[in-house]
Structures are given as C-alpha cells and as structure tokens.
C-alpha cells in the first residue's frame, strides 16, 4: 500500500535558521507515527507545513495524493490537528469550540450532537462545557483541544503533545482514544517530547533534532539498534566458572561482558528476550546456581542519546 504521507526534502527556514532541514519521511496508512524530539527540534513546524498553515521554504509533502504546496485546500480536508497550545479565545466555551469545529468539519446535525456529547464526556469536559475558557485550567483546555480531533475523526490526525499538562488517568484515556481512532482507520502523527508516550503509543518513532530527522523505525528496532543496549545483571551463589563466562561471551548477541564482582556479571547484549533462554540453558547445563537476574532494555532516551550524544533533557536545555 502506498504511504498516505510522503515528505520529500521538506525544509523551512526562518531567516537564516533552519527550523526543518531537508526532512524525508513516509507515513503508512493506519499507523501511529511518533515524532520525538526536544522543543525546537522542528516537530511543530513540520506539522504546520503538513497542515498547510505555513509554506515550506523548499521541498514538499504529499498528503493522500495532494501536494501541500499546490492543493492545500484538498489537503486540509484530510487532516485534523490538535495543537500543542490550546487554540481558543478566552470568551469561548468548550461546547462552542468543539461544536463549531464539528460543524466546520461537515458533521451532520444529529451526528454532531451525538459525537460532541460523547467526546466531551470522554475527556471529562461535559460538566464544564459552558464555562468560558478563562475559567478552565491548563489541563482542561488541553482536553478541549484534543476533543476537536476526536470529534472530527479525520483520515489523518495530527496531535502535538496531546497529553501535556494532563493527569495520568487522563493521559491513559486519551491514549486509548487515539488507539481506537487508529483502529478505526485513522493515521495518527504524534509529536511529543515524552519518551514514554512515544514508546507506548507509536507504531514507529521518528527522532528529530535541530530540524533533522535522525532515524525512524519501530520503538523495538530503535532500541535494538543500540549495540549492546540491553543489559542483564546476574548474581550467582558462587563465582561463575570461566568456561561458562566464555560460553556466554561467544553468543553473537553479546557485545560485552563485565564481572563487576566475583559473584556478579553484567552482560551487554542485543535482543535480550531471545538470548535469555540460551543463557539459562548454559547455567542449567553447567549446574550453576543463580540468586537473581535483572534485565533492562534501553529506553527511547537511550536511543536519543545514541543518535544525538545528548539526553532529551540536555537537548531541551540546549535549545532553550
């Protein structure tokens, strides 16, 4: 199936500054693509170009079969966007905002009434639907912002930091609604600087830094791409035999092996879930007793460090 979004050399310059620098990316229909990066990485600018809000300086993107430069009106009919900062005037009410959005997106009156109620209920804003925006907390405004996309159910939904300022229960609800939307056929682009959110929600993650897309793949493959990124800490009852250690070292997935204490071994390896049974076999065959075993996979932060040399937090500070 051809990709629903094809981005080719997409570039945006503000003055001499590259906000997005020759970005190439394809988004498959029905996937959740996470764009992960610190503030200032170029995620929001990319989104704004896809939504035809701003024009690329160079390159273009095809959304569906439409060019964002040449057919912006048609592109906008495929897209729905929930912005990073809630976009509403102080005098509006959640009901006004979501209801008008549903109208503009062409929902029939009966469908609109039903969906507005459903969505405002789901984001826990139904009781506060007639309060003006200035009476709402940051989290409530954010819920209203995400409600616009949920009520629209566009073919391509773009959500920019959808759960920022939202409590953990709310986050899980919104993640579920986004997954449901994906399962109903929508393609979702998720821009976020929350590692966990990108990890649990995305089918693929693209890491952006200083306007460039450094890598894009499934979270698992990204983690696996760090050589020796998985770690197993093993504690033995006694000292493990040198032969057993050598056998472990011979596995092709094992990158490094350190004896941190006489009874402790730290193994740096790839694809930990596939290697653990083999390691257990070695110990069982050689009748080596172990007291504990702790496994850890690299996080997306490790992936980010791997590709940028900075943690996400450090990158955020550098951009600020």
């Amino acid at each position: 199936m051809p990709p629903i979004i094809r981005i080719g050399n997409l570039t945006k310059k503000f003055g001499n500054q590259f906000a997005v620098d020759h970005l190439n990316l394809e988004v498959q229909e029905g996937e959740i693509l996470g764009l992960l990066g610190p503030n200032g990485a170029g995620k929001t600018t990319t989104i704004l170009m896809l939504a035809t809000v701003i024009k690329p300086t160079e390159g273009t993107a095809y959304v569906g079969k439409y060019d964002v430069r040449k057919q912006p009106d048609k592109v906008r009919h495929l897209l729905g966007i929930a912005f990073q900062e809630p976009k509403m005037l102080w005098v509006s009410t959640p009901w006004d905002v979501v209801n008008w959005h549903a109208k503009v997106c062409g929902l029939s009156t009966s469908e609109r009434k039903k969906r507005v109620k459903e969505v405002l209920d789901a984001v826990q804003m139904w009781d506060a639907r007639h309060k003006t925006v200035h009476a709402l907390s940051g989290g409530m405004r954010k819920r209203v912002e995400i409600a616009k996309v949920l009520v629209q159910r566009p073919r391509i939904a773009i959500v920019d930091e959808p759960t920022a300022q939202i409590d953990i229960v709310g986050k899980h609800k919104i993640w579920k609604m986004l997954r449901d939307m994906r399962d109903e056929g929508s393609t979702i682009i998720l821009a976020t600087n929350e590692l966990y959110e990108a990890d649990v929600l995305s089918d693929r993650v693209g890491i952006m830094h200083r306007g460039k897309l450094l890598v894009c793949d499934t979270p698992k493959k990204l983690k696996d791409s760090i050589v020796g990124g998985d770690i197993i800490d093993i504690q033995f009852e006694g000292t493990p035999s040198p032969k057993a250690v050598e056998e472990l070292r011979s596995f092709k997935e094992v990158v490094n092996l350190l004896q941190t204490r006489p009874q402790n071994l730290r193994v740096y390896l790839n694809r930990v879930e596939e290697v653990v049974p083999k390691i257990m076999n070695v110990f069982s065959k050689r009748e080596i007793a172990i007291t504990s075993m702790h496994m850890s996979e690299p996080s997306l932060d490790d992936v980010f460090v791997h590709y940028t040399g900075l943690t996400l937090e450090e990158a955020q500070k550098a951009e600020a």
Partner: protein
Amino acid sequence: MNKLLLVIERDVRLFFQYKFLIIMRAIWFVSQIALFGLIASRMINIPTQTLLSGSVNAEPQSPYTFQVNATTDLSSMLVNVTSAAGQGSFRILLPNGSLAQSGYFNSSEGAYSFPLVFDHPAAGLWTVQFMSGAAGDVYSVTASSLLDYFRYYVAGLSVMTLYSAAIFIGFDIYEEAEHGVFEYLLSLPVSRRQLVLGRSIGGGLRSFIYVGPLIAVSLYVIGSVNALSFLMSMIALFLFSFGVSGMSITLAVLIKSSDRFDILMGVVDALIVRLSTAMYPLAVVQASNPAYGGLASINPLTFVADLFRWGTGMPIMGNPLAPFLGIVIFFGLFTFVGVMLYEKHIEGGGWQ
C-alpha cells in the same frame, strides 16, 4: 457556501460573547446622546430657530432682498410668504453669489410656505430675493434651517458607533494571533477565500447587528422616517460596515503588530471621524479650512452619515446618488481588494 456561513456565524457569535464591551459601548452611546448631544445642541446654534423674518410694502416690479447670515451650514430653508394677492418669483443666492435656488410662488389663497433643500450648503451671508408682480403687496418672509443639531448629531453618532464596532475585527485578528487561534483557523477544511471573505462579512454583519438597537434609539430620537430612503440609507450603512471591516482586516494584516495597529487606528479614527460630517456639517469644516472641507467631502464616513440623515428624513442633501456611489466604491475596495491582500498575507505563514 456552508463553510462561508459558518465562518460568518463564528465571528458574529464571538463578538457577542464580549458582553462587557457591548454593554459599555451601549452605555457610551446613550451617554453621548444624553450628555454631549443635548449640551452640544445648545452650544452649536443651527437651527430650528428663525434666521430671518420681515415684511415689506412692495413696489411693483422691484426685487426685495433679504439677507440671512447663516453662521453654520444652511443646507435647507423654510420660506413663508404672506401676501394679499401676490404671486411672483424668488431667487436664493449662496454666500459666494451663485444661484442656489429659484422658482415661483403664488400666495393668493393665503399664507404660502415652501421648504427648500440646497445641493451646495454653505455658511455665510445668504441672499433671498423676491420679485413682486403687484403694487402694495405685503410679504412676510421667514427663513430658517430645517436642521436640528441634536438630531444631526444622533444620526452621526450611530454611524460613528458602527464604524468603531466594524474596526473591532482588526483587534480580533491580533487577539487570535496571540492565542494561536489564527493557526487553528488556517488548518481548517475551509478555503482561504471562504475564510477571509467570511471574516470580512462577519466583521461587518456583527457590527451592523450590534448597531441595530442603537439605530432604533436614534430613530426614536430623530423622529421622521421615509421608508424608501431609509432602506437605501440602511443598505449604505450595511456596505459601509463591510468596507470598514475589510479595511481593519487589511491594516491589521499589513501592520502585523498589535501596538502599531492600535496607534494607527487611533490616527485613522481621528482622521476619518473628525474629518467627516459625523459631528458637524460640511460647511463648518469647509469654513474652518478649505483643505479639511475637501478631504471631508470624499470621506466615506461623510457619505454614510449624510445618507443616514437623508434616510431619516433630514433635509441634508438633494441627490443621494453620489455619496451612495462613494460607499459602494469604499465597500468594493476594501472588501475585495482587502480580502485579496489578506489572503496573500496569511497564505504560507506570511502573517507570522
């Protein structure tokens, strides 16, 4: 079309959510009438009072000349003639000596009065001449302006209020830019043309709706209404509010700074409102400085204020076609050219 209506609906609804602003504007309007209008109408001495009266024992075939020192715009006059059995002709000359009006009268059946409206109102020394046809006739002449400053001012105030309400859309644009709502609007499945046109129409329509009750108050104060001319003046007001709204959007987008826009609108307001007939007749402006008069005579606010007065039955002008055409040009310029400029500027993030 449906989307265009939705954009219009949004702007109209939003405006009426600014309840404080609306209430304050209404209080401002009423207090302007109740305070300034009443006080100023006593200070500015135009009119319902008689400017000249007199009677003469006429000699046959002699012209009798009366002079009326009009201290302000004498755009209309009520002339009364009383004669035993007189008939004859009259001539009214402008302060510069040119002929303003001439005609015949016949007062053989008693007192005879006729209202006159001049196309070229002016302040200064007016001359009224009567040419009698019979010896021993007695004439009684009363010349007065039909204009009442209080009514004049209330009509001007309605138009000024419409102007300031229509300007508000420009401030909305900055408010929206500040809260990022502009980006949201640009991301909607609505064509740029629909968005821009909708905003311009919405801005004009909401100010027209807002001024509606105030116009009703004005009509109550002003009194007489001729249905057809009133309808024409309403159309002019309608077009004017769209034009102002388009002008405000155009300037807001071109300037791209709310502070500068605020200052510029103050300057534009000073020029457009003060150099118009909203608060004082053209002749007064002209008398103060001919250049001011020249500018005021091509000001759209002058056109619309005078059309509204004319529509409410004030004898302010003879021919409404020229000012109406001026309003149509103003509307066309800013609604269509302004819309195109707006479209060009917002596309591609040029507004940032």
